[in-house]
């Protein structure tokens, strides 16, 4: 703008050019939207926690954590996976753009509510029940469209919730036009983020907040076969220290750190947890694009474990490069 254009003065004597005014207005608007979303997210968080607290006893106590601890980790994972996939240009490839604030809001909202259906009637898949919960809480969202997007993400967050479509594969659903590419991207982020909570933190407590060790002891000491069926799942989680998705030397890498003290006694339980984790990951847009890095303080032990048990998840790692790091 030349000297002849309109100007706005904030303070006497200080003239702000129109371009700067427009930049500041945009920045203020963005800030207001951010604040509004933060308030919404806080409402969603409180409503989710309140409801979970009310009904948590309906969740099977022998199941690992599906409560607030899991939700917080999924939300953290959602943020991490979003930025990794953005960096790895998945957002550009899938949606033709970078991840925006609305994507982040929807992902956090769905991340906070995705498992709420666990505490409802078990005859229906929990992802569908979580979606119902979202659809019943209009007051938590800015618009019906936003509410529906969040409900869809809850529905698509796991394998079972998508069965009614004929497949749980998000890539196929998007390719055939059943879901749009933005939904496929967001649902992939949530599904991967949920799956990444496969480590020992998942069994620190059960959904009611009871310490995991106590639950394991009870399961171990139970006389019936029925309760003991859950033990391998708990051991499988305990054998995985941590799991994360990152970019390493320009490559998308799934880092799975194992706990050495468990690999010998519970090697196959760990392998089955990894199988399940990879089944979830492979039903998303990430399939076929990542490498796996198995980490442990003792590289030779992890190689041994891999040699002994990798056949359990060999279907899921077909064509995937695996590394071993200390």
């Amino acid at each position: 703008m030349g000297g002849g254009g309109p100007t706005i003065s904030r303070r006497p004597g200080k003239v702000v050019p129109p371009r700067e005014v427009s930049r500041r207005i945009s920045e203020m608007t963005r800030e207001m939207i951010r604040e509004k979303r933060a308030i919404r997210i806080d409402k969603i968080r409180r409503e989710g926690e309140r409801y979970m607290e009310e009904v948590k006893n309906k969740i099977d106590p022998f199941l690992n954590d599906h409560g607030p601890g899991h939700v917080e980790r999924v939300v953290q994972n959602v943020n991490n996976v979003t930025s990794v996939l953005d960096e790895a240009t998945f957002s550009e490839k899938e949606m033709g753009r970078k991840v925006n604030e609305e994507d982040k809001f929807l992902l956090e909202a769905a991340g906070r509510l995705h498992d709420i259906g666990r505490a409802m009637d078990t005859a229906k898949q929990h992802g569908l029940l979580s979606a119902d919960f979202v659809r019943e809480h209009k007051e938590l969202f800015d618009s019906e469209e936003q509410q529906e997007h969040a409900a869809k993400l809850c529905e698509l967050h796991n394998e079972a919730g998508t069965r009614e479509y004929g497949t749980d594969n998000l890539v196929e659903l998007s390719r055939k036009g059943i879901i749009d590419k933005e939904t496929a991207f967001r649902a992939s982020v949530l599904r991967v983020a949920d799956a990444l909570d496969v480590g020992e933190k998942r069994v620190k407590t059960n959904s009611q907040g009871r310490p995991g060790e106590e639950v394991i002891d009870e399961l171990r000491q139970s006389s019936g076969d029925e309760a003991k069926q859950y033990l391998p799942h708990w051991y499988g989680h305990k054998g995985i220290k941590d799991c994360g998705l990152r970019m390493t030397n320009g490559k998308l890498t799934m880092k799975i750190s194992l706990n050495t003290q468990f690999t010998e006694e519970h090697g196959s339980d760990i392998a089955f947890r990894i199988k399940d984790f990879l089944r979830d990951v492979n039903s998303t847009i990430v399939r076929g694009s990542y490498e796996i890095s198995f980490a442990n303080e003792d590289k030779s032990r992890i190689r041994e474990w891999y040699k002994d048990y990798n056949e359990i998840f060999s279907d899921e790692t077909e064509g995937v490069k695996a590394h071993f790091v200390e």
Partner: protein
Amino acid sequence: MSGGTTKESAVWEYRSQYSLSLLDIDRLIDFVRKIVESWGEKVRIHLRAEEQSVQVPKAQMIRPAIERTGSFGSLSYIAVSVLHSFLITADFRVGELRVACKNEKLLHEFGNKWEECFKTGSIAKDLLSIAVPLEGSRFLFACLAENGSLNESPGGKTRLDNVFLVPCLKELGMTHISTRFADFLKGIPNPDGGWGPSPGMSSRALSTASVVLILVGSGQKEQAKRAVDFLLSNRLPDGSWASDANSQILTTAISALALCQYGVKDDILRSSVLFAKNQLRQRSEGIENDSLALGALRIMKIDIQDLITQIRNRLPESIEAITDTDSKITAVVSLVNLLLDMGVKTSDLRIQHAIDFLINSRNSDGGWPVKRSNQSLLYPTILAMLFFNRLGYFR
């Protein structure tokens, strides 16, 4: 049952895609039981449902474990393994049984054992209400092409003269398929506004009416205007539409229904309805078409009670007469639909007999063929699924 065996990096594999249905669960449990008998306690049985994994010590505990963990509808897989020897994965997500082992002889042994259990075991009838919708939707999804066309079979061609049932997918909670198909259809009408039996063929009334039903059913009424004009301008003076002799009643009933759904006034449709009713009274196009034509008239809220009474006399005396292995599945469904129209109860032996026939004719890909042991096709699959829905299996 047919499976393929391959050898990859010293591992022998047997894969049989679309060979496994949830209805085979008891056959699978029997198979696992036999494996445990031969291999003893080394065998690990692992299953996943509703994101939860459990390990069961005995084959008999598979069913209760699934029920406790989630539901049969959320069953992901059952894996049976002996470390360093074999891994059998019954993958219910894709309907595939995979056997991987280090020894070719063992692989064949498992293959034979599975086939034996498959032949001698029975279908888990209690899971029908889960398997029919879930596996049916998997088949229908496989028929959906990437461009949105709905093919007759996975990878097959699009036929528009028998897709008039597609709007009924709404009743099965599968609007996503019909909506996607509608999006595809609106882009390909002929210059005269109509549609042919296949895209690019000259326009015919039945195909055009089917497309109108799909478009209107998907809320895209405005896209159907030219097709409606085509139907109205090609109607014969007696109210019917030109067709081959075997399907004129059906063509007329479906075309009238399409116009009615579009919003064409009743008085304009009167001659077409009259034609269809008179023809149904006087002659037959066979049980299948008659039943469909009656269904179309019923949706239009036309009184068909007198027609049903007349058609009753044309029905075969016993359902067994038409449910031999060579029977057309579509004819059986139409017959039992007529029986239900006549007020026959679902507990009636004839209906139960038809249900058994349909279960035994279903392919493991979740679809139904026109005749048993043939390839699954879109039209008989939707027809059979609608029938099971009518009986309350989708609730």
